[in-house]
């Protein structure tokens, strides 16, 4: 199965959270929110989206052109089955990491923010 890098996990999570409203601007905003306080270049998001589309983790299509975009279409993104699977696997790994760190740092004394 495809293993994801950290940034890919964030972008996939953003697409998952945005559901039907996942396109360049909203995905970038969500990614910035998820990786706060780190600033993320929008170009990096586009490059990652392209890469994940080539890996068939996500798929994209163009919407109808709109006036607020100067008569241009939005490229919408959606998670594919393989993307969902890879994201779930990453979440399980993250869960195991959190549990191990929590145990090692003394139970409830440490909490991931």
């Amino acid at each position: 199965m495809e293993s994801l890098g950290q940034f890919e996990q964030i972008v996939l999570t953003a697409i998952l959270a945005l559901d039907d409203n996942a396109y360049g601007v909203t995905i970038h905003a969500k990614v910035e929110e998820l990786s706060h306080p780190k600033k993320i270049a929008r170009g990096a998001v586009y490059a990652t989206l392209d890469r994940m589309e080539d890996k068939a983790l996500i798929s994209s299509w163009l919407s109808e052109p709109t006036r607020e975009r100067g008569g241009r279409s939005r490229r919408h993104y959606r998670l594919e089955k393989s993307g969902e699977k890879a994201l779930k696997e990453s979440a399980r790994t993250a869960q195991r990491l959190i549990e191990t760190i929590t145990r090692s740092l003394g139970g409830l004394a440490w909490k991931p923010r």
Partner: protein
Amino acid sequence: MEAALSGPPEWLERMVLFAIPPAAREGVAGDLWETYQNPGQYAVEALQTVPFVVWSQIRRNLNLPALILQSALIFLCFGGPVTLMALPLLMLREAYRPVTRPSPRRAIREAILLSCGAMVLLLLIMSVHSPFHVRAGVDSFTWLSLFLAALFLSPFLCLFRAGLIMQGDRSRTLTAGGLPKDALAGAYHNFQQRAFCSNLLESMALVFAAACGFFFAWDALLVALFIIVALCLMLDSVPRFSQACDFTSLRARYQQELARQGQLRRFLHWLWFAPVLVALHDRLTLGESIAALLNCVAAAILCFLVAALNREHGGRVQEQIGLLDRMRETSPPDRA
């Protein structure tokens, strides 16, 4: 997201549009417009975004086998420094590949320009070396035949381009608008079948060409390349039928397969012409300056033909990918 009240100045937008690779232009330019605040912010945002997009498009469109083959041919003809200079240009060209087929007017203009160039070159050579004197194996009859050939080159190239355009129009399989899922699955299935057949036939043709090349004492490297590519093509030509999936996933798979087959075809077009280009190069190193120049013209015309083939075919693939991008799922027609 809040709607932007006004857009960027036209000149600035044009510059940004020019810099964004065509395949990503619609989405990226629209996103930049949507977040527009002032010209400065727009320019900075574009400057930060475009390099990533260009790099991503290079990565996506890069046809490594074709690039290696092109670089090898350039290296063979012009040597290392020119190859090093040409490589980044070839890579950039991948990023800025057009998403539509060239317009018929542009295609015909290119053909006429090339044949005019060939004729001007011939006239120049003839004015320097009088055709009425036999010089180093090029007699007046040869000069005359070459000049007549150049004269007929223009209509030939125009006919070639027109043929490619008409063939492209005829082989259009998708139409804009909506399609039921079953119809899309049918179109995808047909496309895979056609690709399977043509790949199988082409792999057999490559084996045959390699066998001929063996007898006609081609370069051993070329014969080996033909056989390796034929084997890879045979292994690759097994159709991959899609499992049950929804419209969006099916569309994505169709687009990926279209792009993959398009890349394969681009490499094969160059591969088929490689032996002729190598032969021309061999003649370049043998002959004297006039013959060398004539061989250069022949090589340029050949490269033009391959590039024209690739532009038409690549444009058609991109056009189909674009149509799929905007395609909506419709319900199947009622049979009752």
